[in-house]
């Protein structure tokens, strides 16, 4: 697909991009050097306790981020590393102008949706509101008053409508809620006997619907930007949409969402309409009710077919499908840094930093639980020894 000239938002190609966005792009690319390298990971895996990990991290870009903490646990490491990412994100955001500022806001909407769902789910299980707010993802914070109001609504369709009208309508995720309510208004007015079944899957459906609407909205925004940004971002978002579709299907096995009646109506509506799998693959996915059928559904898409072959042929201990998807996505995000003068590097930076935080948490957990055999199961970012890099140097001539 050619995106040249597809954009109606003026972004500027090679010769004009730097005028508005050169500074932020250069900042992000400078911060790229702050990722942990292979040697850093190697030193950390040799550590015996978390104090050593903290000392090793002091040599890296993370510097003294743990100095004010008295006790170090994986949760503390995750929280502090996340707050480092958030500081960097808001530093970039402060220097961004349109349309980069809207683009970065879109990145944060995903975390806002996560926070809304966290607050809704948390009240269903009756947890304290302050605890929940402390657990919210810092990139997607609302105003304090908005967040405190969210749990006071019931978790059923009538409750959601009220929640939207009073609280969420002013937030950036309001439009997604509105569309969801419009689309599901048919099922609200219909059978109420099904309501009991629906309630336990209702939250899942709500979360997945919001994510689908968010991804489609972000995708159309990137298409409007046109040029290199559209090419890179649309590729990344398509991969995310496919992962979402496959995960929805996988996670629904064993839940009421997998029933024959629900599959075609409810589950099918959750698949995003962007992505390689749409429409033929999602059609097949909506009929799949176990792993084997899922594997058959994606068999005509080589990139997912290879992942599923491995998944079906190995046991859950040695192969995690999430890891394979993460590896694929890390590779795509690293490639987003390859060409200059587009916004993809900002999005990729946030995602890769998240992966790095996941790695840190994994390594800390393994050290804490003394499971050194599992410790190398993380996915390094910008690693020179990554599998896919090794493939390309083996086949390439003139290296």
């Amino acid at each position, binding site marked *: 697909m050619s995106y040249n000239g597809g954009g109606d938002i003026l972004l500027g190609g090679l010769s004009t991009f730097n005028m508005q966005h*050169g*500074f932020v792009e250069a900042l992000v690319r*400078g911060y790229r*050097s702050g990722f942990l390298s292979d040697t850093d990971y190697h030193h950390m895996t040799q550590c015996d306790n978390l104090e050593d990990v903290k000392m090793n991290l002091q040599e890296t870009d993370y510097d003294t981020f743990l100095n004010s903490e008295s006790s170090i646990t994986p949760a503390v490491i995750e929280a502090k590393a996340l707050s480092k990412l958030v500081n960097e994100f808001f530093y970039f955001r402060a220097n961004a102008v349109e349309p980069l500022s809207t683009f970065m806001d879109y990145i944060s909407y995903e975390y806002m949706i996560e926070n809304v769902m966290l607050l809704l789910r948390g009240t269903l299980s009756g947890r304290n509101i302050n605890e929940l707010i402390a657990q919210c993802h810092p990139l997607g914070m609302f105003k304090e008053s908005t967040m405190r109001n969210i749990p006071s609504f019931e978790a059923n369709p009538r409750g959601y409508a009220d929640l939207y009208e009073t609280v969420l309508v002013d937030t950036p995720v309001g439009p997604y809620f509105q569309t969801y309510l419009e689309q599901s208004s048919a099922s609200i007015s219909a059978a109420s006997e099904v309501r009991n079944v629906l309630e336990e899957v209702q939250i899942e459906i709500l979360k997945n619907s919001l994510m689908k609407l968010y991804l489609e909205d972000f995708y159309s925004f990137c298409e409007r930007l046109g040029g290199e940004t559209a090419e890179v971002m649309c590729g990344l978002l398509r991969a995310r949409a496919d992962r979402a579709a496959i995960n929805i299907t996988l996670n629904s096995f064993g839940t009421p969402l997998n029933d024959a009646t629900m599959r075609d109506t409810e589950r099918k509506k959750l698949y995003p309409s962007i992505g390689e799998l749409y429409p033929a693959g999602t059609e097949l996915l909506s009929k799949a009710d176990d792993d084997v059928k899922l594997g058959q559904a994606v068999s005509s898409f080589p990139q997912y077919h290879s992942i599923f072959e491995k998944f079906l042929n190995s046991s859950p201990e040695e192969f995690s499908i999430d890891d394979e998807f993460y590896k694929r996505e890390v590779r795509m995000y690293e490639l987003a840094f390859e060409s*200059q003068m587009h916004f993809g590097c900002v999005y990729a930076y946030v995602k890769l930093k998240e992966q790095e935080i996941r790695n840190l948490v994994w390594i800390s957990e393994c050290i804490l639980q003394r499971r050194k055999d599992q410790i190398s199961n993380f996915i390094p970012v910008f690693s020179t020894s990554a599998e896919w890099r090794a493939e390309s140097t083996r086949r390439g001539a003139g290296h």
Partner: protein
Amino acid sequence: VTFASFDFKMSEYDCTTYYCNAGWKELLSHLSPYSWANWGIAIGLGFSVIGAAWGIWLTGSSLVGAAVKAPRIRSKNLVSVIFCEATAIYGVILAIILLNKVSEPDAKIYTFVEGWDFATFYFAGYGVFWSGCSVGFTNIASGISVGIAGSSCALADAQDESLFVKILIVEIFASALGIFGIIVGIIQSNNAQFPV
């Protein structure tokens, strides 16, 4: 001294209207070569400076951003800015050369004296104009291209020091475009000299 009239004859063609604007042929051939020449100087200087400024805008923003995490690149990468500046200097040099060719006539009257050298007059006018255009248009291309290459150079240098010299070679080729312009421009305007 006899004076030629306002509607002088240029070869066989004479103006059919008082202001010589009956068509393009009349208009273009009766535009004063002084105006052609001064336009040329303005275009040569103006577009060169636009190209240089555009290039500095492109490379400067990347340089400042990349230097946040890698301050060591600050001084080395100013060379990209200097290359951009060089295109502006070409424009200034050519403008000074050209304006020395535009000499004021001795007789301060608004008609032409008897025996005015129209051939040299027109040659000089066109020569200076198009020489200015040569330089202006090549320098704007050169300035932008140095700017883009310089921005990539700053970003690459911030990640890996050994890349700086290699990308600098790309910039050198880009700034050679400006040199082509000024060489051709000087040769074009060599024999142009306004009669007095």
